[in-house]
């Protein structure tokens, strides 16, 4: 861990923006990292490290760029972790086991019928599994644009590639995803 940067407290206006980013993007960052790492606990650490880094470098980051900056940092942290693990990870494989209190699937409502609940859970598990099966580059584009709703430009900044590349990868990811969840699609 690097030593602390000697920085002053950000001004109140910037701190308002920081708190707002915290409220709006912390969950998204955790979800993004969880789907890259397959580990919800590590994903929360990644999200926190990203916000810590933002605080330390807040004077260099325009307020409007907080979101792609945070995702970029989270991506770097995730790739660093994946590289360190040195083996193929299966995303989500252990997710439900280690994070039973934070399910990805919607919380079941009391009014829902048990068979519908079971069906929804099964469908969501199939969707998560389909995302897991996407190749890494396609998955990144898919997670950023389709799941998190980033623009192509922001996703390009996060992934460090041209906008056109994001567009192409997203298209391929969608086509692949469609084939993987075809049984759930009723046109």
């Amino acid at each position, binding site marked *: 861990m690097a030593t602390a940067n000697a920085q002053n407290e950000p001004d109140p206006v910037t701190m308002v923006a920081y708190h707002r980013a915290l409220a709006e993007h912390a969950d998204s960052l955790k979800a993004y990292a969880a789907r890259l790492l397959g580990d919800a606990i590590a994903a929360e650490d990644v999200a926190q490290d990203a916000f810590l880094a933002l605080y330390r470098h807040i004077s260099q980051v325009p307020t409007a760029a907080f979101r792609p900056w945070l995702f970029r940092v989270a991506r770097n942290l995730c790739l660093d972790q994946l590289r360190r693990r040195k083996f193929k990870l299966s995303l989500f494989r252990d997710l439900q086991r280690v994070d039973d209190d934070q399910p990805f699937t919607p919380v079941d409502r009391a009014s829902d019928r048990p068979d519908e609940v079971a069906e929804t859970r099964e469908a969501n598990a199939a969707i998560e599994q389909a995302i897991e099966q996407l190749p890494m580059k396609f998955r990144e584009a898919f997670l950023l644009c389709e799941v998190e709703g980033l623009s192509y430009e922001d996703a390009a900044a996060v992934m460090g590639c041209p906008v056109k590349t994001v*567009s192409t990868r997203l298209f391929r990811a969608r086509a692949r995803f*469609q084939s993987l969840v075809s049984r759930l699609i009723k*046109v």
Partner: protein
Amino acid sequence: MNCNHSHYELSQCLDGRLPAGRRAAVLQHAANCAPCGAFWGELQQAQQLVQRLRQPRVGSDFRETLFARIASGEGTPEAVFHEPVPALTKVRYAFTGAAAAAAVIAAALWFAPGQTQRPGAQVAAATNATTPVGPRAEPLPSVQPPLIAATQPLGFHLVAREAARQLDQRYDAAAAALRRVEGGDAKALPTVLENADEVHAFGELLLDLRDRKRLLFTESEIEPDLRFAVRVLGESQRGRRDLQTMQAMVAPALRSSRLAAVSRTIAPVQLDRSEEMEVLQRLTAQRPDIFPKLFIVIGSSGGLDDDFAMLRSGTAFRFDDDCGPSWVAPRSEVESREGVWRRVFDRSQNGAAKVRVAPK
């Protein structure tokens, strides 16, 4: 309108990335073209499915912990600004390293004491009698025909065939070790698991190519057997690496003897050069671990590694990247030739390693 391009534009259309006029044209095409219309409907449906997913939430102490870390003066984690090295760059580094290693070996051979005649010295003496025979008078041995001269570009069908060949061999080895374990020889267990892992890796690659319609299986029974084996062996890697896992998962996965003959049942699809490159780049980028299991770098633009001079003509392939050409040979070919030839590792008096090959 080309339907493939139409699909791409429909994807952009979903994100509002097309100008109004183009959007209208693409949607009009989708309305009149059944496959594109179906694709458009599925795109929208798939997006709705994704939007139904629930986001996990950060823990209730997320903020407190964060601000406690900030207050304690904790700095930015080092990995935050670390740019990951792309896999292709790593491959380039590997090739450069191989070239450097070849140069070092050549230099070691050149200057090793007691080495009275270097490779190629006889040829040089015969072709130019006036050339003084000395370390600095002759050029370093460069690319060696006919092995290098006869090379073809490395194509994806070679990758597929080599993966299938490796799978056959690893299956045989795993099955043999399995029989030993079942006969009471527990020491063969690591061999079973190691070869089963390789069967899994090569099978996964072949099935990926199959899913991408890059190859076909000419026998219909092979594909389900292979899918079953890959799925179960993949599961087995997450369990304990013990006898129980072997009996419960590895042994059933390797039950089909058809897996010993996968190489005879694959038919790679003809691809154009750009598609070939796409497959190869994807392989090296996404599975940097598997390429070295399939091909061994035997030389670069600096010359052929002497250690691989025993390879037959036509068994080396050219692999071009940003650093220039490299030559690779299928691992199965290298290993089979190593069975015919043996390496002699000789150490000279000053400890410099010399590597030669000699017939058995």
